[in-house]
């Protein structure tokens, strides 16, 4: 293709895009008024299912940004069977995630052995003050309502997942 026809073709492409946008509408959505559906397994914010957490500290140690803070104490729970010994359990005092530090790598969700952390697609939690980005365990627990149903992996994904040692 010569120089001038190539230039004209380029102009034609942008002009076609103008007419497409004017007649058929834009690809984008006007955000505050309408919202796009989140993509599958979107990483918006991390929710905490407090009952499952044993304060094992695995997520704290794996976090590359050191943005998770856990404090807990040992306490006695009532025995499972009547007449049994009271069980020793870890009670969670504090579970904070500092979203000012978090880089949304998801290692804490992956590493949690007791299914206490979940990704949710919610993303509208920006704050005027940076300190307010530290979500405590009540706030993290409230995100549990927004956790979507687990979507099955794409075909062929399971085979690959097995190769990765957990």
């Amino acid at each position: 293709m010569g120089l001038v026809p190539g230039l004209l073709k380029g102009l034609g492409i942008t002009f076609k895009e103008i007419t497409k946008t004017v007649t058929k509408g834009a690809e984008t959505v006007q955000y505050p008024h309408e919202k796009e559906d989140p993509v599958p397994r979107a990483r918006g914010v991390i929710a905490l299912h407090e009952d499952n957490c044993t304060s094992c500290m695995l997520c704290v140690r794996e976090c590359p940004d050191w943005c998770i803070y856990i404090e807990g104490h040992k306490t006695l729970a009532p025995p499972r069977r009547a007449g049994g010994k009271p069980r020793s359990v870890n009670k969670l005092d504090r579970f904070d995630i500092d979203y000012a530090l978090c880089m949304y790598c998801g290692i804490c969700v992956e590493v949690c052995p007791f299914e206490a952390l979940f990704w949710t697609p919610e993303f509208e939690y920006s704050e005027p003050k940076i300190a307010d980005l530290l979500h405590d365990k009540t706030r993290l627990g409230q995100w549990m309502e927004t956790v979507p149903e687990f979507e099955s992996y794409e075909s062929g994904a399971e085979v690959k997942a097995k190769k990765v040692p957990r």
Partner: protein
Amino acid sequence: MTSMFAFDMPWAGEAGIRLAFALVAVLLPAGATVYLYLFKMVSFMQSRLGPMEAGPYGSMQLLAEVGKSLQKEDLFPAKADRTVFALAPYVVLVSTFLLVVAIPFGPDAYFANLDTGVFYALAVSSISVIGILMAGWGSASKYSLLGGLRAAGQLIAYELPLVLAVVGVVIQAGTLSLGGIIEAQATGEIFGFGGIGNPYILTQGIGFLIFMIAVQAELSQTPFDMPIAESELVSGYMTEYSGFRFLMFFIGEFASAAIFAFLASVLFLGGWTLPMFVTDLLGIDWDSQWFNVVGPIVMLTKMLVLTFVIYWVRFTFPRFREDQLQRFAWKVLIPISLINIALTGVLKVVF
């Protein structure tokens, strides 16, 4: 302009009205092109809607941007040459305002009827180079300095094809006055057919093409935006500017785009008058007093068409490399425009 008023204006009043009209003639086209093309057309090209919140369809967005710029701190770099740095945007803007002076918007609606309007306009348009060099030097930043030097090299290189392209029009019209060029186009004939006059885009098509390419380079719009290349020079000579001074560069850039389009429509598209068959239909002369009112609208329409082409090209093509840019000016545009001048001279003598 005095003939528009039945009474004698005092000097100061007339000057004030001229100043107000000059402000309108610079800011209205600049605002219109920024909204229509910089905000909306480029968004449509990228399949998005652009600003939609400020006013209906985002039409007040520019006011919001101006308000934001006015609130910003007037920053000076620590090692900047403060006087030069502060004066540079004014020099660029003054060249834009001086340019609009020469442009006729109607038989009596002009700021100054210069006998050598073409010469004046082309001379004044190159003042902005000085402002850009001042900005590049005064900022005391390597990006700005490189941008300023590139701008100087480019603007000087493309000044020549700009001037040489207009020479063909001047030869054909036989006058340097912009009003005279419009008259020559309105009353001209193409091989005995005078229905549309003789807009010089038909007989000086090559000149028009060279003129528009050179204008694109003079405005440092994208295929020729080496001086402000934001991905390598972070906006070049404008890097260190913020707030009002940046706004002045911004207005200067877009207003001069509009005013060069005005100039091109005067030189090549017949200026403020309508084609002969339309004026015959309406039963008026080509220079009837009505054109003091209709002329600015006609000029605005022609300007919007030409700026559409300028921004269409701007938002479509990637930029030249510095050596390609210079080679294109010196080895392609200038020889072609010289041949164009020679051909025009020969044909002028023959016909």
